C-alpha cells in the first residue's frame, strides 16, 4: 500500500470542559508528519478526550485542531481525514470481515470496481487474506484487532488514531501486536497518535511520548529523554519506578549544579530551573548500589525483598530520617543476598541527568 498523503497534526491551546470537570487543559502539541506520538498518562488524565477531539467526536471548549495546514476544529468526524482504531475494535457485528473493511470505501464513494482490490490489499497487509467472509465474532482477539487496523488503513487516512488498541489482548499477544502495529506504521509512514496508559507499551512503540496529567501536557520527548530528564516528579514516577529524594543545593552555575543527598554529593549537567525552590533528585532503582565497604556508603537497613525475574528488588530505609529507597540489583550473586533487617551500606550515583525543582 503506497502513496499515503500523510500530514502533521497541530493542537493549539486545546481545552475541553465537561460540566465542572476540566478534562483537557490548554494542550499544545505537534505531531510531525510520519511519526508516531504516544499520549501517555494515568486514567482520567485527558488523553482519550484529546484523541477524540482530533477525531471530531468531542467539540473542544477552546482551541484549535489542525491536520496539515487545515483547521478541522469545526469539521464533523466523517469529514476529517482521520481513521481510528478503537479499544473495543468496534467491528460491525452484522457485517463480514470484507464488509467491515470495505465500509469506509463505500461511505467515501470510492468507485465500485476499485473496492475489492483495495480490500484485498489491506487484508494482505495484515496477513488476513482468505478470512474475508468470516464474521468478526469468529475471529480471535488479535485477528479482530488486525481487521480494525485494516479497516482504518484502507481509506488512506492522513492520520491514524489509536485508542488503547491493545488493552483487550492478553500480555503476550499485546507485545507481538504492538510490534506489528509499529511495523505497519513505519512502513506506511503514516502520522499516528496512540493513546495508552502503559508506559512500557508507549516507550517501545513511539517516536515521541507526550505525558499527560490532570488534563495538562506535562512533558513531551523521546522515550530516552523522558527517562533521563523528567521535567517533574510526576513524569519521573510515571515513566518508571523512581526514588524522588529531596536534595540540598551546594552550587549551581551555567555548566551544571551539585547537590548533597544523605551527605553524598551528586552532580548534574543541567542546573535546576529555579534554584530558590526545594530541589529533588531522581534516583533510578538500578542506579543505586549496595556496597560492602562500611566506611564509604550511606548506612541503611533492609525492609523487604522481592524477586522480579532476574532482578532482586530491595526496599531499604536510610538510617537517620528513615527515607525509603527502592534498589534493583540485576543478576545478584549469592553473596549479594540480604535478609530483612540487615544493616547495609548503599551508594548513590555520582551524577544524575537532571534536577527537579
Amino acid at each position, binding site marked *: 500500500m503506497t*502513496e499515503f498523503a500523510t500530514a502533521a497534526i497541530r493542537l493549539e491551546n486545546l481545552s475541553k470542559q465537561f460540566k465542572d470537570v476540566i478534562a483537557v487543559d490548554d494542550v499544545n502539541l505537534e505531531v510531525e508528519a510520519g511519526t508516531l506520538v504516544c499520549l501517555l498518562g494515568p486514567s482520567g488524565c485527558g488523553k482519550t478526550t484529546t484523541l477524540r477531539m482530533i477525531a471530531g467526536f468531542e467539540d473542544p471548549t477552546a482551541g484549535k485542531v489542525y491536520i496539515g495546514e487545515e483547521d478541522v476544529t469545526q469539521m464533523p468526524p466523517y469529514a476529517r481525514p482521520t*481513521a481510528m482504531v*478503537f479499544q473495543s475494535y*468496534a467491528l460491525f457485528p*452484522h457485517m463480514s470481515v470484507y464488509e467491515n473493511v470495505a465500509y469506509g470505501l463505500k*461511505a467515501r464513494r470510492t468507485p465500485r470496481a476499485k473496492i475489492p482490490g483495495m480490500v484485498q490489499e489491506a487484508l494482505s497487509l495484515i496477513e488476513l487474506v482468505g478470512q474475508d467472509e468470516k464474521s468478526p465474532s469468529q475471529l480471535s482477539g488479535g485477528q479482530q484487532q488486525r481487521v480494525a487496523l485494516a*479497516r482504518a488503513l484502507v481509506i*488512506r487516512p492522513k492520520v491514524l488514531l489509536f485508542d488503547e488498541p491493545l488493552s483487550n489482548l492478553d500480555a503476550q499477544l499485546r507485545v507481538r501486536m504492538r510490534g506489528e502495529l509499529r511495523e505497519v506504521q513505519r512502513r506506511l509512514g503514516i502520522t499516528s497518535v496512540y493513546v495508552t496508559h502503559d508506559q512500557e507499551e508507549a516507550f517501545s512503540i513511539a517516536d515521541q511520548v507526550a505525558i499527560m496529567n490532570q488534563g495538562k501536557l506535562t512533558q513531551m520527548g523521546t522515550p530516552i529523554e523522558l527517562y533521563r530528564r523528567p521535567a517533574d516528579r510526576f513524569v519521573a514516577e510515571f515513566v518508571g519506578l523512581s526514588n524522588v529524594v529531596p536534595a540540598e543545593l551546594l552550587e549551581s552555575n551555567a555548566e551544571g549544579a551539585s547537590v548533597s543527598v544523605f551527605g553524598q554529593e551528586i552532580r548534574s549537567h543541567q542546573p535546576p530551573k529555579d534554584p530558590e525552590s526545594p530541589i529533588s533528585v531522581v534516583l533510578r532503582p538500578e542506579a543505586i548500589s549496595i556496597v560492602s565497604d562500611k566506611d564509604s556508603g550511606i548506612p541503611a537497613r533492609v525492609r523487604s525483598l522481592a524477586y522480579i525475574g532476574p532482578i532482586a528488588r530491595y526496599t531499604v530505609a536510610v538510617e537517620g530520617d528513615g527515607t525509603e529507597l527502592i534498589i534493583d540489583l540485576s543478576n545478584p550473586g549469592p553473596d549479594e543476598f540480604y535478609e530483612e533487617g540487615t544493616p547495609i551500606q548503599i551508594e548513590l550515583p555520582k551524577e544524575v541527568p537532571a534536577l527537579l525543582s
Partner: protein
Amino acid sequence: MIEPLTFSDRIRNRRPLLIIAGIQIVLLAFIATRVMDIVIVEDSRTVVDGVETITLRRELIGDPLLFVLAAFGMVLPLSSTRLRREPVMLLAVQLMIVALLIFVLWPLGQIFVEGFEGTGEDKRFSLEHYQRLFETPMIVRAARNTVLLGITSATLSTLIGAVVAYTLTLTDIPWKRILRVLVVLTLVSPPFAVSFSFILLFGRRGLITYDLLGIRAWSIYGPDGIIMVQLISNIPLAVLILMGVFSSMDRDLENAAEDLGAKTFRLLRTITFPLVTPALLTAWLLNFISSISDFGNPMLIGGGFQLLAPQAYIQRVELFDPQLSAALAVLLVIPALFAFALQHWISNRKSYVTVTGGARTGHIRKLPGWFKWPLFSIVLFLGMFNLLLYGSIFVGAAVKAWGFDFSLTLRNVSGLVIAIRELRNSLFVAVVAGLLGGLIGIILASLVTRRRFAGRGALDFSGTLMYAIPGTVVGIGYIIAFNAAPYLLTGTFIIIIIAFAFRRLPVGLRSGVAAEKQIDPHLEEASLDLGASRPRTFAKVTFPLLRTAFLAGVIYIFIRSMTDLSAAIFLSSARTQLFTVRMFNVMVRGTPSEAAAFAALLIVIIMIALGLLGRLTGKSFVDLFRIT
C-alpha cells in the same frame, strides 16, 4: 497500484449554510400552510340605489399560536453549534420537535384550553365548567370513586404481583415455565375482553354463578366486578416488573444474610423487601395510571358505578357537552401525570438492584413445604383462571347461545362477515401506526441516547409523556385539536393512525433506548470516522443493530392499536369504523356468543402477531412487555 482517494474534505463538510436555511424556510412554510389558512369572508353588505355592494376581507383561520410554537421548536436546536454543523441531524431533531409538539403537546394543551372556554359569544376565559363539575354530585362521586378504585386496584395488584413474581423467580415450585406464561396471559388481550369473559362466567347468566352455583341475587356488575377485572388485567404488569428485579438480585446478598443467621421471614423483611421497594412503587404507580385510565371495563361491567373516564365519553358523545367533557379529562389527567412524574423520579434515582457484571443472580431457594405449597397454589390458581377466561371466549364463540344453549355452531364465526370492513380498517390502521410509531421511536431513541444538544431532555420527556395519558383524554384532545379548518382530520384514517402511533410511542422509544444502550457507542463513531455521514451511519450500522427493538416496537404498537378502544371510540367515524368499536357495540347490544366470536378473532390475530415476533426476533411476548 491504486491511486489515493480523491475526495475533497472541503467540499464535503463546508455545506453551504444556504442549503440549511433553505430547508428551514421550506419546512416552516409547509407547517404554516398546514396549521393556518387565509380565507375570504364577507365583511359587510350595503345596498345603495338598488346595487348591492359586498365588502370582503381576508381572515386568518387555524392556529397561529401552533405555528409560533412550531417555529420556536425549530429555532431552539439552532442554538446548538454541534447541530448547526450537521444539517441532517439538525433537520431530524427539528422534525421530531415539531412532530411531538403538534401531535403530543398540542392536543393535550387543547384539553386544558377547551375546559376554560366560556359559553358566551366571545368564548372568554371562564371557570364555569369546572364550577359545574364540582356542583354535579354524580361527577364528584365519579372523581372520588376513580381515585379510590385506583388506589385499591393498584395496591392489590402490586401485592399479588409481588407474591407471584417472587414465587416464579426465587422458589423451587414445579411447572414454572408454563406458569410464567399463563400468569401474564391477559397482557395481550383487548382490555375489555377480560370483563367480557367475566360476564360470560359470572354475569347474570354466568356459567359459574348461575349454572354451577345457582346464585341469583349477586351480580358481577359494579365496583367489585371492576376491581376483579382490573386485578386480572394489571397483575401481569406488576409480575413482569418484579420478576425483572427478583431475577437480577445478587444472590450473595441473601446468602450473606442467611450466613449471618437470618431465616425465611427475617430474610424477606430485612433484605429482599427493601431491595425491591423501588420496583414495587413503580408497579403501583403504573397500575394506578392503568386503573384510572380504564374505559372499556367500566363501560361493560361498571353497572351504575360512576368513574371519570367513562363520564368524559358520555358527556361528550351522548350528552353533547364538550366543555364539561374536557374539564373531566383535565381532572383525569392530573393524577395520572402526578403518578407518572413520581414514577419517573423513582426510576431516575439510583436503584439498589443494579445488574453488575460479577453478581450471581437468579438463584432458586428451597422453601419449607408449608410455605411453598400455598405460594404454588396462588400462582396456579391465577394461571388456571386466565386460561379459563380465554377458554370461555373461545367456547362462547362456538356455541349457539351462551347460558341457554351450549350446542356447537359455526354461526357466530360466520357472523363475523358483517364486520369484515371494520377488520380491514383496523388491520390497516394498526399496521401503519405500528410502522410509523416504531420508526419514530427508533429515530428518537437514537437521537436522545447518543447526541448531546439543547432540548434533548424535553424531547425525551415529550416522547414518553403519552404513557401517562388515558386513552379517553387522547381521543378528546385529538378531536378538539384537529377538527377545525384547515386541518380537518376528524373522520379520516390519518387522525387515527397518528393518534395510535404517538399514543404508543413511549414503548417504541423506551425499547429503542434500551437497545441503543446495549450497543457499543464506538460502532457508530467508527462508522463516522470512516467517512459515513449521519444518515448513512444510521441506515447501515445503527438501524440494523436495532432491528430487533424496532420490530418489537412495531408489533407492540400493532397489538395495542388492534385492541384500543378508549381513544378509538372518539376518533373512528362511520367511514373509518374500527373492529374494536364494532365489537364493543356487539358486546353491549348483541348476544354474548356473537360478541365472543369477535373477541376470539382478535385474540387469534394477536397470537399470530406474537408468533411473528418470535420468528423474526426470537423474543417471546413476555419480553415485549418488559419495558419499565
